[in-house]
């Protein structure tokens, strides 16, 4: 009896951990895929963080002013697209250093969002809490209620797959879609070509700059959804610095995932699991070990990425033309 209830408790804990992993992975997946489009096209993007932050703020601000989640989503995407366009102008059109302009966008977003938030909403760099119509609430998938009593399959379906918000579903849809676009469409082939050998693309009569701008447009849209996911689905309004390094974490996941959609998803899930576990372990005392050093778990994704970068885990080869501006005619 005791054993059975303990097992039940453990499985409940695992279910809820898995559920929150799926939820926490969403903004990472969206941002990492955004980085994937840019970097497979040869444009380094360390500005993921800034684009997410800008979208999180603009999305929440517009949603709270209009009371509409859809308007918020649109505005968030527009904000991220604007920053992506700026990155393109500096890095593609002007041939400037891609890392420098990415870093610049991060600083601009980090400074502008709390400035505007406190000026417009007067709440020390936050937006007011969103009413329920202005945020993305959980959506129960069909049959979730009636299947909840079915052992294993039903409970997994109810607790892990169902009950997430729109941006989370978008994130999960974006992975197969990206895999398909990259490997099965003309745009995807050209995108990969322009990241490996822009000269060949140029010689074939295609515009390197136009392809890279197109990649950045997809990048901006995905970053927009990622930011909106933070402030309008997982959070209830914008908080100062709410992206909290997730843009850089997504960059790490992109490297860990070798610039490929499915491995990138696994990397995001791993990092999200670390995040979910560290949230549970806050203040827990393990027998024989003492209190869990939460900070160590927080640092785990970065340590893993370093190990990969060092080539100790497995080698990853970035796109060949990554970071190299291509001269415009």
């Amino acid at each position, binding site marked *: 009896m005791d054993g059975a209830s303990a097992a039940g408790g453990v499985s409940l804990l695992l279910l809820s951990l898995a559920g929150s992993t799926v939820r926490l992975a969403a903004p990472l997946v969206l941002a990492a895929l955004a980085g994937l489009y840019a970097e497979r096209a040869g444009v380094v993007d360390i500005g993921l963080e800034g684009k997410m932050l800008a979208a999180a703020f603009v999305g929440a601000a517009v949603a709270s002013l209009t009371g509409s989640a859809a308007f918020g989503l649109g505005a968030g995407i527009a904000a991220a697209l604007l920053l992506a366009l700026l990155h393109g102008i500096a890095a593609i059109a*002007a041939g400037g250093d891609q890392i*420098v302009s990415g870093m*610049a966008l991060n600083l601009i977003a980090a400074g502008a969002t709390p400035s505007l938030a406190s000026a417009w909403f007067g709440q020390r*760099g936050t937006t007011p809490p969103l009413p329920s119509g202005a945020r993305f609430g959980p959506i129960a998938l069909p049959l979730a209620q009636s299947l909840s009593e079915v052992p294993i399959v039903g409970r997994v379906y109810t607790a892990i797959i169902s009950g997430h918000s729109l941006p989370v579903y978008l994130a999960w849809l974006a992975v197969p879609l990206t895999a398909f676009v990259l490997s099965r469409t003309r745009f995807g082939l050209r995108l990969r070509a322009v990241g490996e050998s822009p000269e060949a693309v140029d010689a074939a009569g295609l515009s390197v700059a136009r392809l890279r701008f197109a990649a950045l447009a997809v990048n901006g849209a995905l970053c927009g959804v990622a930011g909106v996911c933070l402030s309008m689905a997982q959070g209830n309004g914008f908080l100062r610095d709410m992206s909290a390094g997730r843009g850089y974490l997504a960059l790490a996941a992109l490297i860990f995932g070798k610039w490929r959609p499915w491995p990138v998803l696994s990397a995001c899930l791993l990092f999200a699991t670390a995040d979910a576990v560290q949230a549970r372990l806050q203040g827990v005392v393990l027998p024989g070990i003492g209190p869990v050093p939460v*900070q160590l778990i927080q640092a785990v994704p970065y340590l893993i990425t370093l190990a990969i970068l060092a080539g100790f885990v497995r080698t990853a080869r970035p796109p060949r033309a990554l970071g190299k501006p291509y001269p415009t005619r």
Partner: protein
Amino acid sequence: MRRLCRALAALLIPAASLAVALSAVAGLVLIIGEDPGRALLTLVRGALGDLEGIGYTLFYATDYVFAGLAVALPFQAGLFNIGGEGQAALGGLGATLVVFALGDTPAPLVLAAAVVAAAGFGAAWAFVPAVLQARRGSHLVITTIMFNFIAAALMTWLLVEVLIAPGQSALETRTFPSALWLPTLADVTAGTRFDAGEAPLNPIALLALFAAAIYWILLRRTPLGYEIRAAGLNALATQAAGIRVPRIILLAVCSGGAFAGLIAINELFGAQHRLTADLTAGAGFAGIAVALLGRGHPLGVVLAAVLFGALNQGGAALSFDMPAVTRDVVTVAEGVVIFVCGMLDGVVRGHIGQSLRTLWTAPARQAV
């Protein structure tokens, strides 16, 4: 011709970046709904209007000189060190450990040891990314970003579990003994006609100028500096010439880390007198803007540092005078400077440089 191009870049790019950055601040103030003209005036007056403002400006400038050199030196070797923030935090840890370990040792000795420890810890924190870049080719930008986050986690853990002052809830160590507080402009001028209020400008500012001089001598007057610059211009040719490029990378990046570590000395012994979780307040990132605006020249770095010091102090005055405008506008200005510098650099090297070269070589071609 090349000289013309370089002079153009050296004058035009900083001037344009500054103009765009100030317009960005003005634009932001306008969006917020305040008078941009009055805002810029308040900013300048707050930074340079009285002795206290100037004292604060130069105090922040001291941080930024170190931060700028931390980026500029590896940049000469063709490498981008974004890890100044983490390296400065570790520098603070080194200095703090020295202070608590040496106890009753005479203050000058403790201070000297703290300076060495801060530089050493900063360099040590840059060592792993440097080795990974030199031996494994792991991109320094990514590894130093990772190291910033690891440093933040490490410092939080140390402050929570080990270094926190007993009976305290705030994440900070014990206050340093007052013998270790450096005399500030505020102390010196207190009670005189030229009262500098609270301004924490202290002798470490001279150390910053000294560091800039060392940077210049190292780069321009030593064989190592030649090797660093050669590796930055063409690593393959440098390697072929028999210079060990991995060693150059290691030295350049670790020296950058040492400069970053010294930011902590200014903050710890000049102003805060205790180790906190957010010792550097983004100075490490400001260093990128300083190095780019100063275009790697020590004088340029010092001038850019003073400029950003003035912006930072002016931003504080601005947010005091206009509560709707927060200090975050300074971060925006930094970002805009970095953006415009990066973009114009590409333009000057690419388009303008190309057309100038065409202009220049056209008559020569006709002559042939």
